[in-house]
C-alpha cells in the first residue's frame, strides 16, 4: 500500500497507464542490488531511488576520489575519502526516505556473491573491471538472477540484459576475457563525463521495465552507443548453452575460483597456480594446458584441453605456444615449467601460468 505522501511523490508514475498504482507497488516491493557505485552506479542508483524501488543494495569497497567527481554525480567534494556505497546511500536517503538501503562496504567476492545475490530480484552491473564482470555474470547464472549490464570506453557504451528468462549471459557474448592489459579502464584512458550518465540511465530504464513488466527487455541484444555522433546500434546475441552449462558445472568450485587469475590480473610473482585452481581449468576450452613431461611420468593427466610438448621439443617448436588461449604449463615438480615459462617470457610471451609444485601432488 502506498501512503498519501507516496501518492504525491510518485504522481507522474501513477497517472501513466503502464505504471499506475499496481506498477508503483511493484517498484516498492522490488529489491535491486547495484554492484559498484561509480560512473554507471551513480545514475542507476539516483533514478531507482527517485522511482521508488523499495529496497536497494549498494556494494562498493572503493572510496571517493577527486577525479571521480567529473562523472560520479552522487558525490560532493566533501565525500572525497569516504566509502562510495556509504556516501551514495547518505546522499540518496535525502532524495527519497521511503527507500530501504543496504550498504555493503566490502569487495564483491566469490565468498559473498551467491548469498548476496540470492537476496535480490535483479542485479545491476556497474563494475569497472573484467574480473568482477565475469564474477557478477557467473554468480547471476548460479543464483538464476537476471542482470542489467553496462560498460563504457571513452565515448562508447554497451548495454544489455543478461540471464533473463533463458536468454544469453555475458559469457555468451564474450566467452573469454581479453588478454591481460589489452583493455584499459577509465583511469588510464579517460572517459567523457556524461557517457556513464547516458549508459547508466539506459540501465536504470531496463531495471524499471523489468520490474514493471513493460516494453521489451534488452535481452538477447546488445545496445552500442557512440556519444561522438549520437548513434546507436543493436546487435543480436545468441544464448550459448555450453557457456551457461560450464558456469553451472563450476558451482562446487565457485567459492575458490580466482577471477583475477582468470582475467590475467595477477602480478609477476603470481604466475604459479595452486592445484585447486588448476583443477578448475581442466576441460576449460579457453585454456591450453601443456604437459611438459615425458610419456612415462605418473600420474597421467588427460583432458580435452591437455596436450603434451616435452622439454626436448620446446626449443624447436616454440611457435606451438602462439595462441589466443591462456597457457598453463605443468611438469612433475614445477621445475621444468618454471624454466620454460621464463624462457618464453624472455621471448615476449607473458601471462603464462605454471602449476605450483607440479603433478607429483596430483590426485
Amino acid at each position, binding site marked *: 500500500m502506498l501512503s498519501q505522501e507516496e501518492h504525491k511523490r510518485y504522481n507522474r508514475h501513477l497517472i501513466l497507464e503502464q505504471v499506475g498504482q499496481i506498477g508503483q507497488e511493484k517498484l516498492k516491493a522490488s529489491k535491486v542490488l547495484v554492484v559498484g557505485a561509480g560512473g554507471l552506479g551513480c545514475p542507476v542508483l539516483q533514478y531507482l531511488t527517485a522511482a521508488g524501488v523499495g529496497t536497494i543494495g549498494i556494494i562498493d569497497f572503493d572510496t571517493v576520489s577527486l577525479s571521480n567527481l567529473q562523472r560520479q554525480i552522487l558525490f560532493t567534494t566533501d565525500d572525497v575519502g569516504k566509502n562510495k556505497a556509504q556516501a551514495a546511500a547518505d546522499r540518496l536517503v535525502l532524495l527519497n526516505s521511503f527507500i530501504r538501503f543496504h550498504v555493503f562496504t566490502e569487495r564483491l567476492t566469490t565468498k559473498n556473491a551467491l548469498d548476496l545475490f540470492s537476496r535480490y530480484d535483479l542485479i545491476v552491473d556497474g563494475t569497472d573491471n*573484467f574480473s568482477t564482470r565475469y564474477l557478477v555474470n557467473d554468480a547471476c547464472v548460479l543464483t538464476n538472477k537476471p542482470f542489467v549490464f553496462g560498460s563504457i570506453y571513452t565515448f*562508447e557504451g554497451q548495454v544489455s540484459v543478461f540471464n533473463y528468462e533463458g536468454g544469453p549471459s555475458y559469457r555468451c557474448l564474450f566467452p573469454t*576475457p581479453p588478454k591481460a592489459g*589489452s583493455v584499459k579502464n577509465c583511469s588510464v584512458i579517460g572517459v567523457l563525463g556524461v557517457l556513464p550518465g547516458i549508459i547508466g540511465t539506459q540501465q536504470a530504464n531496463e531495471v524499471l521495465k523489468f520490474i514493471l513488466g513493460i516494453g521489451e527487455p534488452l535481452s538477447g541484444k546488445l545496445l552500442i552507443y557512440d556519444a561522438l555522433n549520437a548513434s546507436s546500434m543493436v546487435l*543480436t546475441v545468441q544464448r550459448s548453452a555450453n557457456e551457461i552449462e560450464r558456469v553451472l558445472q563450476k558451482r562446487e568450485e565457485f567459492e575458490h575460483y580466482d577471477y583475477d587469475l582468470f582475467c590475467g590480473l595477477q602480478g609477476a610473482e603470481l604466475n604459479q597456480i595452486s592445484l585447486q585452481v588448476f583443477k578448475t581449468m581442466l576441460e576449460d576450452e579457453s585454456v591450453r594446458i601443456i604437459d611438459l613431461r615425458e610419456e612415462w611420468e605418473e600420474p597421467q593427466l588427460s583432458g580435452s584441453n591437455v596436450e603434451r610438448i616435452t622439454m626436448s621439443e620446446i626449443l624447436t617448436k616454440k611457435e606451438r605456444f602462439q595462441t*589466443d588461449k591462456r597457457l598453463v604449463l605443468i611438469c612433475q615438480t614445477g621445475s621444468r615449467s618454471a624454466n620454460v615459462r621464463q624462457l618464453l617470457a624472455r621471448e615476449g610471451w607473458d601471462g603464462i601460468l605454471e602449476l605450483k609444485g607440479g603433478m607429483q601432488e596430483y590426485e
Partner: protein
Amino acid sequence: MKLKIIYLGKIKELTEKDNQQIEIEKGMSVQDLIDQLTVEYPHLAFESFQISVNRNLVEFSHVLTEEADIALLPPFSGG
C-alpha cells in the same frame, strides 16, 4: 563483393577510422577476413573482439556469402 567494416571501441583507435569499405572474394570466412585486416592493421592480432555480420554475432568460421555490414566489437571494461 563489397563489405562495410564498422570499427568499435579500441579497434576504432587502432585503425584510426569509424568504418571502411573493402572488396573481398565471395566465400571467405570471417577468420580469413580478420587475417586480411591484420595485414593492414598488425595490432589487431593483440586485440580481443567479436564479429557481427548484419548485426548478428557470428563464429569466426562463418562464411561470408553476400554483401554485408561487419562490426568488430571489443569488450569494454569501464564503469
